[in-house]
């Protein structure tokens, strides 16, 4: 379990894009790609902006008015998963804060623990017909068997 307070994205190997309130993340080294929605997308935006973990926990508590310890626990599990996937790296000191404090993404109305959906091989995505093999929310039909989300 990581006890680091500061993280940065593992660039240049990790790229991400906010697509209609969902963050799509690619690890260009491993060929894996990921999806983070709702609270997961929010936390990713905060990571991009260099927000410390304690500040993220406080923000979650302020937004959803719940138990701060529970948010901290969910957050730690999510960050551990990002670390395991090589998407972020711990920092000893705070990174230079981004001009955007991660507020551009409105928080979801209800709290759900942040989730990272993992798709094991980018080639799977690229081999699919991107319009016919895609479900109504835009994910490939082949997502029936992704690695289980945390």
């Amino acid at each position, binding site marked *: 379990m990581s006890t680091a307070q500061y993280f940065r994205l593992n660039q240049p190997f990790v790229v991400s894009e906010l697509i209609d309130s969902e963050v799509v993340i690619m690890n260009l080294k491993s060929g894996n*790609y990921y999806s983070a929605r709702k609270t997961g997308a929010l936390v990713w935006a905060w990571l991009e902006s260099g927000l410390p973990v304690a500040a993220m926990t406080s923000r979650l508590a302020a937004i959803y008015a719940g138990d701060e310890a529970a948010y901290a626990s969910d957050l730690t599990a999510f960050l551990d998963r990002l670390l395991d996937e090589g998407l972020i790296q711990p920092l000893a000191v705070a990174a230079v804060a981004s001009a955007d404090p991660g507020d551009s993404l409105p928080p979801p109305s209800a709290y759900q623990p942040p989730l990272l959906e993992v798709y094991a091989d980018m080639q799977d*995505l*690229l081999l699919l017909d*991107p319009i016919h093999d895609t479900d109504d*929310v835009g994910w490939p039909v082949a997502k029936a068997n992704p690695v289980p989300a945390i």
Partner: protein
Amino acid sequence: MKEHAYHPGKLWPSLAQEQLLKAALCDGEEALQAFRTWRQGVDLEGELGYPVLRLLPLAYHNLQRLGLRDPLIGRLKGVYRRFWCENQALFFAMHPVMQHLREAGVDLLMLKGAPLVLSYYRNHALRPMSDFDFAVRMEHLPRAVELLKESGWTLRKELSADGLQFFHAALCMHGSLQVDVHYHFLRECVTPTADQWFWSDVEAVDFQGLQAWQLGPTALLFHTVMHGVRWNEEPPIRWIPDALMVLRQRGGEVDWDRLLAFADSQRLTYRLALGLTYLAENFAVELPESVHTHLQQYRPGVLERIANRAVLGDVRRCYAHPLTKQGVLFAEYCGLVDSANPFRLLWGFSHYLRYCWELRGRLEIFPTIFNGLRQRLGWR
């Protein structure tokens, strides 16, 4: 121009493609209505084709901005995500290649998709790419090819004096990656003068921390239109959003006098006029009055008219007969030649025939014709 009605779906967008282009590129109700019309007219379960597919991210992006609510939007998002991933992977794979060449002192000028993604669309999803194109100065070409070969790339066709004279790029492969290394910028512009024109209008661009070059807006607009306005089995509609991006973002910087003078000198003004007037008539591009007048009054000469027959028309039937096929080669050559002198034209064409027929020398031309006739007529 009445030519815009010819070859829909081959030279110009079909009506359905035009609706999708408007959905992707227009604003407000015009875009939304165009999308609804396109949706009604297209079989979504059928084969859309790559040219249409690669337009969908731009349509998704524009329609999202306009707040469209439609069940299809999720699938468009899937296409958007797919091309975003593809381009990210392509750029990542190309970075070490570009770095290797740059460290060896090779000047790299990115062409087509990459500079448009980085400097105009500013979004990896909106301009799908299937390969990577860059230009190198002619004096850097041998070194560039040598370095690529050392890195495991193979050339589809080895460089040759003929290739440098009559063709425009070395096509290089490495696994699923393809790079077109341009030593000339267009297949119609293969002279040192034309190369110099393009190289004299370049600007720096950052490619993931590497310093490279891209064409300035004037040369980029010319390159984009010329690359697009040609008959193609797969409709070349991608040039339309590309040219609009250049015109909408940096149209004020286009040096129209320079552009027209170069087009005239290359005998490409007629095609330039076709492209620009298409944009003006369908996408409200406002051309300066002097440009409009110049294009309207332009009358192509004989060589340009012959060359355009091969570039703008459907010449597939011509390939069915040996004689008409040579007619297409002659039309192609008319697009390359820099002199209308009949003697020089025929002299040069004999070289072009030798190149196209892959002969060792022009002395083999007549025996080849004789052998062809003998086979065709059943002579022993």
